[in-house]
């Protein structure tokens, strides 16, 4: 028999707390790790250009794009195009998003409204939006209205569908509880239905933001006088590849920015949900 050390005791919870627990490697570097892959690609690309693996006739080197961005920023041209594009995107989001949200709520709350309109919306939804372009040009010309229309209609559907779905799927037991506890229609909506639908509405919003930039690029190639899409089209005409690549990178950045903003909103609004709480 082995002797037991008289000083031995099982570690308590307190002991475990005071131990310097090493956080896993990926969590300690969570702040910069997501940018490792994009950064690495840029570095390889730059090196590839310098050693002649990548022809600058086909793809300008990142440093050249950066220099171009600086030039365009100094002349103010960059901010003009960025501003115009952002305004168009947000305008379309405001119009299409509001309409989609309103109809989604109406159809989620009223079976009559859903019967009347949902089938029509589902039919229109299956038309590829870009197939509408010829029609849109005939209706609205090639002006601002056409671009706003295209962006609005593209964000309308994801927001509509997810709002509708979210409202429909609110736990009926909670609604019954609200009824039993004498909630007015207004507080039933504000305290039970809307917060219950919110996670789904956010899914719709994220999806809509992606579509918004996508459709905007195409819409801005329609005889626009400014905007990122216009900047890229102009640059192509004059074979200014650095500007073309710059506008592509700007779209990527704007998309990421929209995603960051939505995520921040989610973390705030859905703090109650363990799936969204920050680790």
């Amino acid at each position: 028999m082995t002797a037991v050390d008289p000083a031995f005791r099982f570690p308590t919870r307190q002991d475990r707390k005071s131990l310097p627990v090493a956080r896993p490697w990926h969590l300690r570097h969570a702040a910069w790790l997501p940018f490792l892959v994009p950064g690495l690609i840029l570095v390889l690309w730059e090196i590839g250009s310098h050693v002649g693996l990548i022809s600058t006739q086909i793809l300008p080197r990142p440093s050249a794009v950066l220099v171009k961005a600086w030039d365009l920023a100094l002349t103010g041209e960059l901010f003009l195009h960025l501003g115009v594009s952002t305004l168009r995107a947000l305008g379309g989001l405001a119009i299409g998003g509001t309409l989609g949200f309103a109809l989604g709520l109406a159809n989620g709350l009223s079976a009559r409204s859903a019967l009347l309109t949902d089938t029509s919306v589902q039919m229109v939804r299956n038309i590829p939006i870009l197939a509408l372009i010829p029609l849109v040009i005939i209706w609205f010309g090639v002006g601002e209205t056409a671009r706003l229309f295209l962006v609005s209609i593209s964000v309308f559907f994801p927001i509509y569908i997810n709002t509708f779905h979210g409202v429909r799927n609110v736990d009926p037991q909670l609604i019954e509880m609200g009824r039993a506890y004498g909630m007015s229609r207004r507080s039933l909506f504000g305290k039970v239905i809307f917060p219950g639908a919110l996670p789904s509405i956010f899914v719709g919003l994220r999806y809509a933001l992606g579509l918004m930039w996508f459709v905007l690029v195409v819409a801005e190639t329609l005889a626009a006088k400014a905007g990122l899409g216009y900047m890229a089209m102009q640059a192509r005409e004059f074979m200014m590849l650095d500007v073309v690549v710059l506008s592509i990178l700007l779209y990527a950045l704007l998309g990421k920015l929209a995603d960051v903003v939505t995520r921040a909103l989610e973390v705030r609004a859905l703090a109650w949900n363990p799936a969204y709480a920050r680790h």
Partner: protein
Amino acid sequence: MLDIDQSALGADVALIGVEKRFDGNTVLSRLDLTIRAGEFLSIVGKSGCGKSTLLRLLSGLDQPSSGDIRVDGLTPEDGREDIRLMFQEPRLLPWARVIDNVMVGLPEGGPVAERHARAEAALREVQLADKAAEWPANLSGGQRQRVALARALVSRPRLLAFDEPLGALDALTRLVMQDLILQVKREEAFTAVLVTHDVTEAVALSDRVIVLDAGRVAREVVIDIPHPRPRGDARLAALEAEILGAIFAEGGPVRSAAGGTQLSG
């Protein structure tokens, strides 16, 4: 026993010839029942005997097909703050903190500070005052059901209906919750109606147990034993056996599915 003011807050309940049918199925048939103010009544019976339906009628969530229900002389309806229903599930709003969930039980409007104070008092009553700012997701099953109890209590109801509120809890938490229910019942003196599958629970908590079978009262047992009732008491065990016997009695007074026999009254 200090039995001074049992009816101060409790509601008188009367059911007169209450019938409930769903699509031609009679769930409750010509039920007559009176519950005196401050009484603790339990309703037991096999699944589908109509006990949950009875509770929904009492709390005004459903209306009887015929007959009359009076709680303090008035027909029950949704949102009467003197009648509260506690469900089998806690049914807390996951996006509202504990204190806000409790405030759901208060009538809308009124000064915020007062609502807050009343909700805090109710949380103290269920010993969860320290959890006021928590999200429901961070509570255990028993704690959530205690928040639901606080929500039911906060408007100081005169009739509290329990629809198997402890059914989903583990055995030990159940015992703790039973004691808690008895304690708040003693303090608040409401009329309590408990629907349960658990005959032991019914016998431990109530003043009277009725056995419901096919929509009518098959047996009525008065539990005339003062609280605190020691668990495993022989008299309680005998009453429990009697009630179980009534539940599983073959060829009881009501057997016919297509409603008709008029044996028990």
